[in-house]
């Protein structure tokens, strides 16, 4: 489904700010895999998602999605195949536009935009039904500006927008990190429901190790731009947070796990 082969990325090469973010990442996903990704700050988690999405070009390696070589495709073309939800709730929606207008733009992902009306009556009805499923009452506020919504509502909306056209791959970068714990739980279980219902292939970065174990069928740990641990199936289900902490210490050569991972 997704083949990431020997991907390297160095930011600001040749300067004092040089940073090797990815050091030969290899990752193969099967169809309907739901992978959770953990790792310390700066491990390269966001970078690998950005490489898949085409936000920056990669230095070396290749990325094949469902048989299509997307390594050199510009960001907006890859978006035809990808659904994305960002950490920052502001980043996934247009705040000055209506909820239904945001959905209408998302509904046209992967399609050619022309001079027909930006949103049709049939679409409004469809969006009404889809919003109902979120259970946030947004279906009654379809003409409200997205800027008026709370962070959690925006993330739920972004999630719906990302999956309105079924993506080949859903990319979630700590999409609940900016939310309060209760809202984060709701958005997370909603995420899980959508992924199960639509049988999506997904990669989800999280700093919460419990969530990383609880959700998905596979878990990978990244460290210094590499995948250092990859576990799936029964073995993954039976993981404990302490196992992950041990793995992390092992990977980082006995150093203490950083604060964020300890707390999680």
């Amino acid at each position: 489904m997704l083949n990431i082969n020997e991907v390297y990325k160095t930011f600001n090469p040749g300067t004092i700010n040089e940073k090797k973010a990815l050091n030969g990442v290899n990752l193969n996903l099967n169809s309907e895999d739901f992978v959770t990704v953990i790792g310390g700050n700066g491990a390269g988690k966001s970078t690998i998602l950005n490489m898949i999405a085409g936000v920056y070009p990669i230095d070396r390696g290749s990325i094949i999605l469902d048989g299509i070589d997307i390594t050199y495709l510009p960001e907006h073309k890859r978006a035809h195949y990808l659904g994305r939800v960002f950490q920052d709730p502001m980043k996934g929606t247009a705040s000055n536009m209506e909820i239904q207008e945001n959905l209408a733009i998302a509904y046209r992902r992967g399609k050619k935009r022309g001079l027909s009306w930006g949103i049709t009556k049939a679409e409004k009805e469809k969006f009404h039904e889809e919003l109902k499923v979120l259970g946030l009452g947004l279906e009654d506020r379809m003409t409200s500006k997205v800027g008026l919504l709370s962070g959690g509502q925006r993330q739920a909306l972004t999630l719906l927008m990302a999956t309105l056209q079924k993506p080949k791959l859903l990319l979630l970068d700590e999409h609940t990190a900016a939310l309060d714990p209760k809202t984060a739980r709701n958005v997370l279980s909603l995420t899980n429901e959508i992924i199960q219902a639509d049988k999506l292939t997904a990669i989800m970065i999280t700093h919460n190790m419990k969530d990383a174990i609880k959700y998905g069928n596979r878990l990978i740990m990244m460290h210094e731009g590499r995948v250092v641990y990859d576990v799936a199936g029964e073995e993954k289900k039976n993981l404990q947070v302490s196992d992950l902490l041990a793995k992390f210490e092992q990977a980082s050569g006995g150093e203490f796990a950083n604060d964020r991972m300890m707390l999680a």
Partner: protein
Amino acid sequence: MSFLISLLWATHAATAQGILFGVMALGVYITFRVLDFPDMTCDGSFVLGGCVSAVLIVKAGWNPYVTLIVAVLAGGASGAITAFLHNKCKIPAILSGILTMTALYSINIRVMGQANTTLLGVDTVVSMVKDILPESIQGIANFTNWVVIVLGCIFVTLVTMFMYWFFGTEIGCAIRATGNNGDMVRALGEDTDKMKMLGLVIGNSLVALSGALVAQSQGYADVGMGVGTIVIGLASIVIGEVIMSRARTFKFRLISILLGAVIYRVIIAWVLQMGLKATDLKLLTALVVAIALTIPKMLGATAASKATISMKGGDSNAKH
């Protein structure tokens, strides 16, 4: 009394001019507000529209109305160059516009072969309408201004209807979203460079159309006629926002801009009547814009959200 009469007369002319400048303000609104692209091209594209139109009438004997189409195309091309400099050459938005504007100064003189072109004694969009009107109404006071006002209203209506339609289409929505959140638009599969290109082309087409109409109605095109276009456009937008601060829908926002453009001209005519030197106008305009931009911020404590919504890009509540 004579002061009042001359003021009224001046207001008439000012209203007529204001409507024609309103088309320019709508163009500036597309680039500055909808696309959130600080586009300085308009100082040049406004003149370009006027030059192209004037030269085609005077030197090529074209129908004044047909020259408007060429002016629109020329304005669109100048917007495309700015978009190219920004998208492909990765030059910052402001500088891209300044480069095109600077280049247009030379081009405009090339187009005219000199620094200005007069339209006296030739047909213009205004004279053609005057000619077909019956003798009986030709004598009414301010006849020419009335013709310009009616003609301007027709153009403004067409442009407003076009904008209302266009920004409700799939592409139009994507352009509005680009001005609001480019990351989102790319993540949803649209090329933001393409959207910026389209927005700049359309915005500058309208600015050039306005330049052509202004040149024809004032009877000359001059290479200096575009100085401060951006500021006048912004002044119109912010005056409109201040007087119609409740205008939340796209339609009313467009109307507020047109009103702003007229009010701006009337204020200018008024202060000129009061004895201000014409050369001090730019200073006054800059002050008007600075004050008008400050007022919403000062009222901000109570109406913060309202002000910020109207200050940012993607600023268009097209509702269908």
